[in-house]
């Protein structure tokens, strides 16, 4: 099947080092000694633990419930005992600690009673969403937005095209590639389920043109109902906005969402998870993770959520040391972590070990414009940088800082070695903080005014009451009319009198 492809601006072409792991089958990582499950592994409100310390849980049993719409439940990755509920380090750019449920596996890996859904096509799309939500499925591509929210948008709005994103543009990462090669059936069936859930008119699965095996695997399973498209290898071709532009030629409006132009996008791993959730009732408790870089045996692992990064690295023959750094995610957008004991969560797609290099000296910007040429959104990173550096945040918004997808292309090409993306994150966080502060101040002002009003009322109440003059508080229309007419006639009388006097004077 052919579809006209379009080009997105900017981007980078570079060596991606995928052959190393793309050809080796993924192996199941053995049961770890300890499972740490953060209650927040998605964007949105953290879920609320429903188990207590010491309680025995089964594999796939819900252990935390959703709190609000943009929230999802959490399930035990294996059977065992909850040994703690408390703060542990989690994968977060600020190296935070957050609430986690810690499970000590009992080794039996005993399943909770889960129920499959028969014949999803007869199920109401709304109900399908509920199933997907109850299985704790987030977008597995990167950001980790709860999948049901995106699906619901599809039900509320009319979806023209559903895009299943198998374009892994970040170097080193092959977890989606391996997943497709090994579980193509899951991906294709899951795609059909998501399509039913959002009632999309068209459906596209996109892979990168350097994933021939994955393409073949998918081609065996798809039918005329799904388009399978290869997109040219370029970074960041797998970004949501970029892939939409490549496939449809449409631009996601600045500050808007894909659904505003009738498009819903999900990751291939999300589709596979949906398949498991619908056909088996199996919640999201494991995922493919690529272990790459300076490890002895780079490969993909199928890991239970909550397994520590260190466990995975050890399985690939790497002991953490001073000369290397660990990156969660790819080299372009990944997060440097210093504590290898943090757990794998729903959005962890790669653990990359890299030689630690001394940071290059940052020179002044020479306005060469390389960053502008590399930016896939056509932002002007040099202007954003100039304004972010001088804390001129209003101006950064004029230059559309919130359209920045932090892909890192600008920093990658900067000859002055300026960490541009870091400046942009800083500006974004400062603007957000300023907005929160302003909201807080507004609230305080409101409270203060209310308080004043109440105090005033108290004082009024304490005052000796004045004698009240009886007035009819609500005069009828007739009364009003009479009053007005009386006044008018009185005035006229007065005027005629004055006129007479004046006339008399004049005649004299």
């Amino acid at each position, binding site marked *: 099947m052919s579809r006209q492809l379009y080009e997105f601006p900017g981007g980078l072409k570079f060596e991606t080092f995928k052959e190393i792991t793309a050809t080796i089958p993924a192996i199941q990582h053995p049961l770890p000694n300890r499972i740490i499950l953060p209650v927040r592994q998605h964007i949105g409100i953290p879920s609320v633990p429903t188990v207590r310390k010491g309680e025995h849980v089964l594999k796939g049993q819900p252990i935390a419930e959703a709190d609000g719409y943009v929230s999802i439940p959490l399930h035990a990755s294996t059977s065992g005992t909850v040994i703690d509920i408390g703060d542990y380090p989690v994968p977060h750019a600020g190296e935070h600690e957050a609430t986690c449920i810690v499970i000590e596996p009992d080794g039996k890996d005993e399943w909770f009673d889960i129920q499959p859904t028969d014949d999803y096509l007869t199920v109401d799309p709304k109900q399908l969403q509920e199933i997907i939500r109850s299985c704790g499925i987030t977008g597995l591509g990167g950001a980790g937005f709860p999948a049901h929210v995106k699906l619901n948008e599809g039900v509320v709005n009319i979806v023209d095209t559903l895009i299943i994103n198998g374009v892994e543009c970040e170097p080193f990462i092959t977890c989606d590639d391996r997943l497709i090669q090994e579980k193509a059936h899951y991906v294709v069936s899951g795609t059909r389920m998501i399509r039913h859930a959002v009632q999309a008119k068209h459906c596209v699965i996109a892979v990168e043109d350097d994933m021939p095996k994955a393409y073949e695997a998918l081609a065996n399973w798809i039918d005329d109902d799904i388009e399978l498209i290869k997109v040219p290898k370029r970074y960041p071709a797998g970004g949501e906005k970029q892939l939409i532009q490549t496939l449809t030629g449409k*631009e996601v409006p*600045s500050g808007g969402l894909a659904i505003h132009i009738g498009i819903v996008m999900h990751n291939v791993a999300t589709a596979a998870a949906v398949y498991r959730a619908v056909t088996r009732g199996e919640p999201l408790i494991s995922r493919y993770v690529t272990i790459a870089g300076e490890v002895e045996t780079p490969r993909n692992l199928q890991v239970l959520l909550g397994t520590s990064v260190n466990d995975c690295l050890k399985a690939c023959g790497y002991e953490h*040391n001073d000369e290397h750094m660990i*990156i969660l995610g790819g080299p*372009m957008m990944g997060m*440097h972590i210093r504590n290898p004991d943090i757990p794998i969560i729903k959005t962890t797609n790669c653990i990359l070990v890299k030689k630690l290099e001394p940071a290059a000296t940052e020179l002044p910007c*020479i*306005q060469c414009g390389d960053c*502008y040429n590399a930016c896939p959104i056509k932002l002007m990173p040099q202007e954003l940088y100039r304004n972010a550096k001088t804390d001129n945040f209003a101006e950064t918004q004029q230059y*559309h800082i919130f359209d920045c997808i932090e892909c890192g292309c600008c920093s990658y090409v900067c000859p002055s070695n300026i960490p541009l993306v870091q400046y942009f994150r800083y500006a974004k966080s400062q603007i957000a903080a300023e907005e929160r502060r302003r909201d807080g101040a507004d609230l305080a002002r409101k409270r203060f005014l209310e308080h004043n009003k109440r105090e005033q009322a108290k004082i009024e109440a304490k005052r000796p009451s004045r004698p009240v003059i009886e007035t009819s508080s609500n005069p009828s229309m007739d009364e009003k009319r009479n009053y007005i007419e009386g006044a008018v006639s009185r005035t006229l009388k007065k005027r005629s009198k004055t006129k007479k006097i004046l006339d008399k004077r004049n005649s004299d």
Partner: protein
Amino acid sequence: MINQQLLTSPHRHDGSSVRTKMLWVCVSLIPGIACYTWFFGPGILIQCLLAIVFALLVESVLLKIRKQKLSVFLLDGSVYVTAILFALMISPFTPWWINFIGICFGLVFAKHLYGGLGNNIFNPAATAYVFILLCFPVAMNQWPSAIDGPSQETSIKNSFKYIFLMPHDSYSENNYDSTSSATPLADMQNRLAAMEMVNEIRTSSQYGNYAGKGWEWVSIFYLLGGIGLIALGVISWHIPVAILGSVFAFSLIFNMYDTNLYPSSLFHILSGGCILAAFFVATDPVTASATPIGKLIYGTIIGGLIYAIRSWGAYPDGVAFAIIIANGLVPMIDEYTRPYIIGEN
């Protein structure tokens, strides 16, 4: 936990640096300089070396005063580019102290007073040249000529004489001998003012096939280097194309209007500093416009000014003036040509 500094993404870099960019600019000037030396003797090499030495000295002092790291900023390469471009703009016969004054002025007033690399509004080399052109017009109008073929009279001895031994007090046109003259551009301007006709003037011995004898070849070799820079991706095509295109277009219009009063397009493009400016001076990223449309406007303004100053101005070549004026307009050009981002429409 291992003690590391927390790094932010991306954790990769393409290895480009300001230094390599600047180095490529210098390298791509080599064909032009070689051709210059071939036709007009080694004076230009001496000027380049002098300018580099002076520039390094002045830059070091200024960096020390501004408490900046010498190891970082002396090696960024920008100072070499400024020095070489300045040397290529002045006459190979320029006395050493004028060279020094120019470098001082350029680096102090056009670069470091604005905050050094990346913060200057005006191109330091062009500013330096304009300054000495205004201060020492006589010295700036003494150029070697290639009338007698490649570097016959402008020997190394002669160059030394002019650069180092010219008595400062008795400084006048009389101290130069027959090897020096006005540039073809200046000659053209003077004689057109004296009511001679272009074709008549072009028959003089200092003119070649298209422009000045020798000079046309130097320009062509600059052009080759410049095309190399575009091919390497160090500069974009916008500014050179806009400058050369507009000079070509303006001169074509007036040439068609009256062939006797206005020299041909090729004469203008291959004369004076037109190509050097289009590829090497005006493309200085710090002082040029940063948006694609802005670059075209900026280049067109420079091209238009070059032609206007050459045709109706007081100076034979207005390249440096044109660049400085356009530099001043850059912030406004950038503001009004801000490109649309994806999803803005």
